[in-house]
């Protein structure tokens, strides 16, 4: 299940980056710890058969590059516009994953993105992290979910 989730998120990130940012040179690797001082953390809360958060960690340079590509404008600082645009991308990736999960009879919903860091004090049954490397920088995903219905998958 953890492996499936990992793959589903990596694939969805791939597809969305390819489609929206025209990036094709993308690779991924599991990440135990991702150290980056200057990053924007976007948490997408998930509710339903799986509950928890998926946290997207976009380093500042990655965030600025992504929004510059999308807007065709030079973007120099992380402001409300940038945060909102990358939050929507995190939302789109997560939504695509839920579509895949729903074909496995897992029903989940997303709550609106929030800018926050992972809660280290909570326990999660399904916990995995990955780093996705692109030509415009890294993105790391922290998946922290609990199964609500144990009979699934």
């Amino acid at each position, binding site marked *: 299940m953890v492996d499936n989730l990992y793959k589903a998120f990596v694939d969805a990130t791939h597809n969305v980056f390819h489609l*929206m940012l025209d990036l094709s040179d993308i690779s991924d690797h599991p990440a135990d710890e991702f150290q980056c001082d200057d990053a924007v953390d976007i948490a997408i809360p998930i509710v339903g058969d799986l509950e928890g958060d998926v946290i997207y960690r976009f380093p500042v340079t990655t965030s600025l590059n992504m929004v510059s590509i999308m*807007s065709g404008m030079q973007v120099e600082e992380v402001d*409300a*516009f940038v945060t*909102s645009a*990358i*939050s*929507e991308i995190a939302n*789109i990736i997560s939504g695509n994953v839920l579509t895949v999960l729903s074909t496995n009879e897992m029903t989940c919903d997303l709550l609106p993105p929030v800018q926050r860091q992972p809660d280290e004090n909570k326990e999660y049954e399904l916990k995995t992290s990955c780093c996705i490397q692109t030509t415009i920088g890294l993105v790391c995903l922290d998946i922290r979910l609990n199964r609500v219905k144990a009979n699934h998958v």
Partner: protein
Amino acid sequence: MLWKDKYELGVSQIDAQHKELFRRVESFMQTSRSAGNWEEKVPKLNETLEFMKTYVVEHFRDEEEYQKSICYPGYEAHKQIHTGMVNYVLEVSKQYEDSNFNEQLMQQFGGKLLAWLINHVAAEDQRIADYAIKKGVGGNGR
């Protein structure tokens, strides 16, 4: 220019509307992110916002009509996405008016709108064209 040819569906009415939407979003971003005093940008932004409120609804309606005309199986789900966006636009513009034209709200709105539009047109709307082609009813000889 934000528009890319790969967004084309091959349905001239819909493609023209998409191009117009991209143009308006671009002009909205350029105005809202230009240097200078926020108060001075408000009239132009309000004008674009008002235009978008009407145009988005018209476009969604026309696109849904087109989907019906080709018996697109994803019609209901697509309509729900449209409704969600219309509600979002109306909610934000109400908050914006209530806040007496707060800049942060419009910057947030611009960011979400940009990413949403690119994904919706490049992914969701494209599926309509894929279906039309599969069915042999696609436009532009695609």
